[in-house]
């Protein structure tokens, strides 16, 4: 009896506690909207005054403005501090403050889409070809900056190369400010260099030497699976690069141009002789155990295999390889890694489009002029650039003063507490202001030199395709590709010749020919427009 009473009292107390917390919570909750409500009239009021400002030669900044900016990804844990610092400077120089928002990576495409289609008041947003810049630009989601740039971002207008402005032009309009950072992200592989030397295997220079390397590793270390994890990327990009098949418009699936020099010669690669030879070769690779038989469903990254000493090869672009190699230097200093970029198959590299990263102003912006002025400062003034890109000097980094390198974190800071300041700052990259980290993998700089020397313009990425007319074919072809194409290319079928015949037949049925015709048409239209033969 006494016990039940006590229990009841316990429940009663809990209920009281819950009620108390609820009430406290509700009252806290009520304060919030009023705070945000008072901020908004401010922004809209200032929007009315700005058109008048555009008349004057020297932009009028007498009105204090709060801008709303959006970046992709997540904030750093010190972002608040950094932005507060930035706002202090902005307030002084431009009478402006910026509220910096992040989309976070959760479902970011949906969110990005909503931000641009809902007409939310946003003054600047990250834009990129891989975040559908061209699609949104064509739909009219961004503001045309052509007339604003010379007045409000004069330095940027003059320092961005003409070619880069061309990249972001859609028709006669410019919808974004591209980053100025010629970047090469060709495919390539990271491999265990120490094993190569130890086993006396040939230097990696071409497909045969890669095969010899994988074979040598597998024979000498039977327990090692050379590509330990999902080996699809390693294999697929090797295939494309080896034959110089170029994907069009970013990722065109099975349709490729046959080589860089013949951009109009477009084929579906499964129907080529090269593909036939390739799948036969891959069959032998799979048989030799270069990857496991469940490789297509494996969710492990091949890089993890290297970390544990059970793998030898990992597909990365040069920057990614740099990060991976730096990482491993710290965690497994006994492992020596090498890098082989696939550009060496045909000895040329194409830079990314300038709009691979950039900043754009949505149509709904309240203060586009001020936003451009902020961006101009951010890109070109090293004080601004360093703060927002590398964090607070003396805390997140130390400038070495050679104009090239920084130390992360600053001297006397505990690297466990102060982590490298890293947000999605790619949109305002400007090469002369960029610094690399002291003590990083030096191979990256050398590779970039190599790429620059053999650079050819990127003519395939800007081809804009939305696949609207051939939607059903795309879905059907993708399905066939996953069901028949992937196992075939990974050498996981018993009879490659038979499987190839089935694959080709299924592709025909799925409508690969219509898809090919569509890509051909779009590519021709683009090449005609740009005057490329």
């Amino acid at each position, binding site marked *: 009896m006494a016990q039940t009473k006590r229990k009841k009292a316990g429940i009663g107390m809990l209920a009281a506690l819950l009620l108390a917390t609820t009430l406290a919570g509700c009252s806290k909750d009520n304060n919030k*909207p009023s705070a*945000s409500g008072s901020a908004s009239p401010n922004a809209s009021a200032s929007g009315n005054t700005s058109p008048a400002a555009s008349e004057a030669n020297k932009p009028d900044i007498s009105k204090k403005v709060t801008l709303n900016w959006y970046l992709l990804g997540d904030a750093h844990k010190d972002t608040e501090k950094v932005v507060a610092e930035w706002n202090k400077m902005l307030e002084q120089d431009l009478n402006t403050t910026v509220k910096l928002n992040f989309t976070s990576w*959760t479902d970011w495409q949906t969110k990005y889409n909503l931000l641009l289609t809902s*007409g939310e008041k946003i003054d600047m947003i990250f834009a990129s070809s891989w975040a559908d810049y061209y699609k949104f630009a064509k739909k009219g989601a961004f503001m045309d900056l052509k007339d604003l740039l010379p007045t409000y971002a004069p330095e940027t207008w003059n320092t961005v190369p003409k070619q880069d402005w061309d990249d972001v032009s859609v028709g006669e309009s410019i919808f974004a400010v591209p980053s100025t950072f010629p970047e090469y*992200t060709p495919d390539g592989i990271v491999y265990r260099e120490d094993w190569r030397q130890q086993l006396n295997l040939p230097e990696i220079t071409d497909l045969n030497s890669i095969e010899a390397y994988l074979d040598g590793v597998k024979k000498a270390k039977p327990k090692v699976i050379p590509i330990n994890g999902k080996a699809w990327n390693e294999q697929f990009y090797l295939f494309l690069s080896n034959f110089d098949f170029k994907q069009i418009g970013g990722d065109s699936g099975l349709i490729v141009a046959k080589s860089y020099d013949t951009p109009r010669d477009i084929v579906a690669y499964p129907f080529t002789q090269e593909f036939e030879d390739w799948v036969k070769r891959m069959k032998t690779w799979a048989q030799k155990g270069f990857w496991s038989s469940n490789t297509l469903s494996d969710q492990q990254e091949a890089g993890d295999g290297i970390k544990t000493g059970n793998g030898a090869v990992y597909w990365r672009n040069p920057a990614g390889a740099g*990060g991976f190699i730096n990482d491993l230097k710290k965690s497994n200093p006994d492992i020596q890694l090498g890098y082989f970029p696939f550009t060496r198959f045909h000895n040329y590299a194409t830079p990314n489009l300038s709009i691979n990263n950039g900043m754009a102003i949505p149509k709904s912006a309240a203060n586009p002029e001020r936003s451009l002025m902020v961006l101009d400062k951010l890109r070109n003034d090293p004080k601004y650039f360093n703060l927002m890109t590398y964090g607070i000097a003396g805390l997140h980094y130390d400038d070495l003063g050679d104009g090239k390198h920084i130390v992360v974190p600053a001297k006397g800071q505990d690297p466990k507490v102060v982590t*490298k300041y890293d947000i999605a700052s*790619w949109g305002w990259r400007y090469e002369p202001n960029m610094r690399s980290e002291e003590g990083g993998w030096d191979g990256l700089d050398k590779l970039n030199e190599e790429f620059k020397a053999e650079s050819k313009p990127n003519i395939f990425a800007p081809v804009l395709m939305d696949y609207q007319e051939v939607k059903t074919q795309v879905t059907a072809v993708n399905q066939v590709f996953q069901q028949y194409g992937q196992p075939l290319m990974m050498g996981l079928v018993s009879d490659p010749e038979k499987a190839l015949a089935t694959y080709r037949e299924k592709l025909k049925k799925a409508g690969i020919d219509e898809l090919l015709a569509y890509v051909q048409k779009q590519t021709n239209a683009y090449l005609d427009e740009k005057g490329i033969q």
Partner: protein
Amino acid sequence: MKTERSTQVFNVAGYLILTLISLLCLLPFLLIISGSFTAETEILADGFKLIPNDFTLLAYKAVFSEPGQILKAYQVTILITLCGTLVGLFLTSMTGYVLSRKDFLYRNQLSFFIYFTTLFSGGLIPWYILIVRYLDLKDSYLSLVLPALVGAWNIILMKNFIKSIPESIVESAKIDGAGDFTIYRKLILPLSTPGLATIGLFMALAYWNDWFSANLFITSGDKYPLQFLLYKILASAAVLKTNIAGNLSADMKPPAETLKMAAAVVVTGPIIFLYPFVQRFFVKGLTIGAIKG
């Protein structure tokens, strides 16, 4: 009292099967917990194990390197769940009561109007525009509470439940001079506790598990609810596996497998301990409802 042999056999078999099934249900949790205590390299090398060779607390140290964030997220989630559920229950039960009263002339039309919204919805973009542009709730706790506050389905449930309370009770109270709100508060609410418990459970679970509205509307980190925080950790790992990763800076690293497990334990753990206590409450409420019909 002696039970028959067949009953005994049945009981033994039943217990055995149920034990097996519950063990199967427990296994994934065990894997998460043991995974969170395993060294990262061990997971990479041999995969997950029930009993780790190498016991380590590193993942938890990483999770609690910023304990403020998780505590804050807990606070937000609890606040939203409590506020949302209590206010929601109040509104839902009131609507249900009004719709169940026979002397409300347009009750059928209004019921249909509410029911109608379950058949059609404006979709994501109009919803987003409404909340962000017209209600101006971006980055406000209200954007997490308001959308799920009153659900058509819950109102219909509540209305049907209140219908089962005899009309004469209301009438007798009226004769005694009670006003409509007093009747609702003093008679209807206490009599419909089983219904309130059921709907309250639905709502509380919905609020607790909701990460999507936070994903859309919350932009400042200190307002993230718990589920979204967890989801965010996993999502940034997923992004690194797509080809966007090539464009990202090389320093962005996926969270380690063990960290994911530890985060899951930290986020779900306390609720699991709380559940048996709260559950008893609900089961009691539900069975009372069942007996009374």
